[in-house]
């Protein structure tokens, strides 16, 4: 059944009449996502061209449609507000596309929205190929299958997924968790879900330098995922130390977050780390057809 998102998930779009919101609403609808409405304060009572109703508030939208999922396209200063509004209305999973939400806003949000899963912010979203897309990924590169994919980056995910699909590895669910310092859902959260998902047979973890998410992921894999092959990747391994590269996470200083530390952690968990995205399908193939004991 994939994780976090299946074909019956009812989705609303916060910021549905904005430029990005409107554009991606159509893409998601085209993919088959059950978009049941959207929210733009002041435009309640109208409908967008494709027929979905617009509401003034998330509560109105949830009351009228029974939506459980939301995808958020709002300016950075309104990101925390949008997440709190989603939580207040009983949304169960919110994908926050917005980039540049202040870290302290997110710090308060993630500690005060119990029971709601947040993906992102600053993430490409979530796709369960063949079922539903709640995100901004170019959907045509994905293919239904049994590989779970998690990544801190958007475009690097596309690069890797493209390779997987071309090599014949379809995906159960792909989650872009986002590259901001404080994000709602971590590698470990996703790994826990994949570990329990019958439709996921193998997992790709695409990390980056900086932070300790990859080390935490490796520890979790070692302890809790003995039976599903996992392949890793670390972006930014050639970066000189002390340089901040786009994602606030991607900065190396001291001994934490170095490529060496991450590769070592993955190795200790029995997870091979690809040197380049194009190697991932091969590493996966070797592990998905194990030699019988």
């Amino acid at each position, binding site marked *: 059944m994939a994780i976090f998102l299946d074909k019956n998930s009812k989705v609303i779009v916060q910021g549905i009449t904005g430029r990005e919101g409107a554009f991606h609403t159509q893409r998601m609808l085209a993919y088959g996502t059950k978009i049941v409405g959207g929210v733009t304060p002041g435009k309640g009572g109208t409908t967008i061209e494709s027929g979905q109703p617009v509401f003034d508030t998330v509560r109105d939208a949830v009351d009228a449609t029974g939506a459980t999922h939301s995808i958020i396209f709002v300016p950075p200063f309104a990101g925390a507000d949008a997440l709190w509004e989603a939580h207040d209305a009983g949304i169960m999973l919110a994908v926050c596309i917005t980039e540049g*939400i202040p870290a302290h806003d997110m710090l308060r949000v993630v*500690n005060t929205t119990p029971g709601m899963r947040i993906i992102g912010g600053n993430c490409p979203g979530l796709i369960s190929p063949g079922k539903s897309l709640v995100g901004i990924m170019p959907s045509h590169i994905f293919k239904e299958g049994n590989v779970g994919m998690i990544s801190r980056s958007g475009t690097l995910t596309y690069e890797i997924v493209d390779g997987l699909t071309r090599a014949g590895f379809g995906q159960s669910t792909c989650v872009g968790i986002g590259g901001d310092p404080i994000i709602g859902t*971590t590698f470990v959260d996703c790994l826990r879900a994949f570990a329990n998902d019958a439709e996921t047979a193998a997992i790709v973890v695409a990390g980056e330098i900086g932070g300790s998410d990859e080390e*935490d992921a490796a520890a979790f894999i070692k302890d809790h995922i003995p039976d599903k092959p996992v392949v890793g990747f670390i972006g930014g391994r050639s*970066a000189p130390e002390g*340089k*901040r590269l786009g994602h606030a*996470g991607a900065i190396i200083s001291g001994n934490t977050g170095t490529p060496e530390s991450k590769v070592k952690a993955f190795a200790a968990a029995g997870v091979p780390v690809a040197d*380049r995205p194009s190697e991932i399908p091969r590493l996966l193939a070797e592990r998905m057809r194990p030699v019988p004991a």
Partner: protein
Amino acid sequence: MKLMEYQGKDLFRRVGIPTPEGVFATTADNVKSYLAAHPGSWVLKSQVLMGGRGKAGGIKFADDAQQGEMLARELIGKLLQSIQNPAGEHVKSLLVEEKVDIASEAYVSIAIDRAAKKPIVMVSRFGGMDVEEVAAKNPDDIKKYWVDPAAGYSPFMGRLLAFRAQLPDGYRKAFPSVLGALYTLFMDYGATLVEINPLVLTKDGRVIASDAKVELDDSGLYKHPDIAAWNTAAPADEDQAAAVAIGLGMSNYARFPDEPGKPAKTVGTIANGAGLGMGTMDAIGNAGGGAANFLDIGGGAQADLVKKSYKLVTSDERVKAMFINIFGGITRGDQVAKGIVEALAGDDVRKVPLVVRLTGTNAEEGRAILDRAGFVPVETMDEGAARAVALANGSN
């Protein structure tokens, strides 16, 4: 945004953290007249962002106005270099502060713990030295506490940390309120790091922040226009300034200095997304070359930004070839292609051999635009990297 010590102490005073008496000076005359009016023993501290300032000779002591003026002349304009910062940093200003009689030095900081999603407070009774060394030698000498941001700070946390870290008795009364003020600063100004090292206990029983290290979250700076203006007034990093100047985020562009024993940094890179940007650098490395830079045009970039990014990267004279690697999501291939064509058509850019890889959203439209300009993109990232490295090495 990293703040200089004098800026950090400005914030300290706003929240009520005691700092030494002193004055900020940009000329030797400033120093001379201040010391003339305030007899005593003073410290002249170079205002730079780099670490290892003391070992690099950036801190001097003066007992009168004449000595102060002489030392200030020596320091202002000096290039400070340290092991952490071999490139060094020029001293443009000084902080002149009272020389306090130190009884004890402690360490205290608050940072964001990404994994716990909470502010983490760290306290050690071994202040005044490199805390990473303390952590490496004896991790138990650093005591940690994770604050629930919903409940916020409460004084027991300061008491608990002071007792657990075995701070000398003299700290105990002041410490919970100093830490509370530091937490207020951390939250109210959207800091990613606030650090006092050392937090000094003086022989006369005062607790004073002798140094100040503050880093603010760039994304939250819009809430503090006065502080954001500090940054504009004195950009800490040329790359950041250049990025902001063309409309990119501060962290979307970074040049890499040449490293001994590694391939020369001759390939310029542009990609969309930080992840792909890093992947592109790595691909250059894997192909045996050296990426001169990282540049992420972000999501949904328009043609104009692509053009400006091209110009920025090629302004680095080391760049002998360029690799533009786009996997369209929000970013649309046609806009990127349009930007490339416009950049190459302009007279104001330095032209270097160019490799383009273009796939994802509106890639076909983009390829058609490049096609009309007589340009054929490559198919994969690995292929593009290999080709760019070859071009930079003079092959074709």
